[in-house]
């Protein structure tokens, strides 16, 4: 009857979004007097963080068919674990894998799902409700899940990760996928080389058409580096190929919600805001004092980015030097 949480390894360790999901599962389990079982495919990495995040048990799924992510195999594998564990609640992160697999699991079990949850569920007796963002962050809605089995995919960066000294029991789980086939053939995988995954980043430095051209991104990258931040951009910047498409944030790009978002030379169109207004703190640097983005900012500097950004980089370097 444990709360099942699907987790993944990325760049050699447990993904941050997975730890958030385990933390989340732990809070649900506490309300229901049960524990968290984490699932991980492969699992040839240090898994101790899963215990620290709140998993009581970790099941390592072994099957050759799970090496490339194909939702068909993975969904079948998770179904087998959920059945063996008799889990009524399954938690995913609302990331690439979650969006691929969670809907399949929901359909398999005919289980109600809240996709992109932003708060802990409120459980009282038979009633189970979860809040999520709707209308691209303009509002939230509380959903009640009416089915016996319940699935939640948690929007990344909704909660900080909390780790304790707890440990989890780690066991292998053999799934049987002999009768499952998928005709999808992977031809090529292109990993983007940036060190930081944009949706995971705590700090994001983003710039727009105000930067005039791709040759001016040096200072944006330097500012990002000084903050340990990921870089992002507005849509026209990606459309003009000044920056790679995966950096495009907004309604039609990636939706992000970092702790801190810098918008430099971005006007603040509503379609841009739709992808970034979940950020905790927003800093806007724009030469036009009437740029709409200032209405959605916590801190603003009216000024020419070409003058302000180099000074800001220096100020951050000074600050970091003072801290050490």
């Amino acid at each position, binding site marked *: 009857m444990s709360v099942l949480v699907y987790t993944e390894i990325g760049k050699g360790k447990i993904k941050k979004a997975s730890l958030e999901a385990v933390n989340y599962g732990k809070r649900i389990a506490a309300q229901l007097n049960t524990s968290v079982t984490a699932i991980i495919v492969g699992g040839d990495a240090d898994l101790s963080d899963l215990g620290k995040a709140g998993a009581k048990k970790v099941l390592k799924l072994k099957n050759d068919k799970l090496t490339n992510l194909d939702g068909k195999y993975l969904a079948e594998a998770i179904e087998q674990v959920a059945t063996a564990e008799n889990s009524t609640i399954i938690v995913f992160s609302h990331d690439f894998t979650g969006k691929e697999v969670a809907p399949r699991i929901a359909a398999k079990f005919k289980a109600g799902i*809240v996709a992109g949850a932003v708060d802990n569920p409120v459980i009282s007796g038979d009633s189970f409700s979860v809040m999520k963002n709707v209308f691209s962050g303009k509002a939230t809605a509380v959903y009640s899940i009416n089915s016996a089995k319940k699935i939640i995919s948690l929007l990344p960066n909704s909660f900080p990760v909390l780790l304790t000294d707890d440990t989890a029991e780690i066991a292998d789980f053999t799934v049987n996928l002999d009768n499952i086939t998928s005709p999808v053939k992977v031809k090529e995988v292109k990993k983007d080389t940036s060190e930081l995954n944009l949706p995971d980043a705590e700090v994001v430095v983003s710039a727009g058409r105000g930067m005039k051209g791709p040759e001016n991104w040096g200072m944006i990258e330097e500012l990002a580096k000084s903050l340990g931040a990921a870089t992002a951009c507005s849509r026209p910047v990606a459309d003009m190929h000044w920056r790679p498409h995966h950096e495009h944030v907004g309604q039609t790009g990636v939706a992000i919600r970092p702790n801190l978002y810098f918008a430099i030379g971005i006007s603040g169109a509503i379609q841009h805001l739709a992808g970034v207004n979940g950020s905790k703190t927003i800093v806007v640097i724009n030469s036009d004092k009437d740029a709409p983005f200032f209405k959605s900012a916590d801190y603003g500097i009216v000024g020419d980015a070409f003058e302000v950004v180099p000074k800001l980089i220096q100020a951050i370097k000074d600050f970091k030097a003072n801290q050490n």
Partner: protein
Amino acid sequence: MPYIVKFASSKKKRQKTLIMKILVCISNVPDTTTKISFTNNDTTFNAAGVQFVINPFDEWYALVRALELKETLGGNVTIIHVGGADSEPTIRKGLAIGADDAVRIDTEPNDAFAVAEQIAAYAKDKGFDLIMAGKETISYNSAMVGGMLAELLNLPYISLATKLDIAGSVATIEHDIDGGTEVVECPLPFILSANKGMSEARIPNMRGIMAARSKPLTVVAPIASDKLTNIVSYKLTAGRTDCKYIDASTPEKLVELLHTEAKAI
């Protein structure tokens, strides 16, 4: 492979007629720039005065790419929508852009699963070669319908496709995965969700708009379905109150505030 059994008849038909049958799922959403509000004590979305459009991912990427494929390979593009009669202007717009015909399943969409269940029930014996959905709706932002359809119809699902080409009965798709992109090959039929990159927007012209009026729009009765979830209440997100301005000549002041006040660095 059960779906080969299920779709065997359509495969035969395809060989005979060489026609690609594409189904594009379109949702009806408030335009991003319109103000939204709720009524009945914040339990109901207030549609009064709201400008509705085809969900951008469904229109720009799924539908337009479907039309491009039809133009080069031959075939038929059907759009399908689950919703009430009030979404017909949106469906007509899809026809004006170039879809050949439309199906409306006449029920209010309760949630992603209810939508998928209705579309699956309709599509299961129609022999579509390709079913396309958008990445997600900009209203309820679930990104779930495509994956659910795949499970319900026992078809492969390629999520977040950014490129799609078809040669013979095999498609090559580039799609976004965690930390990169992947190129896959998949035989027809299958389901995909369309992301930015598939194609560029098309604006319907006068001829398209005129033609749309006489294109077939079939209204289909829904199948019975359970409400697995329901919305209890809504709340508008509180906007940011006041922007604190820092003089352009003293960015160190910003750094200090980000550290002491916002605790962001």
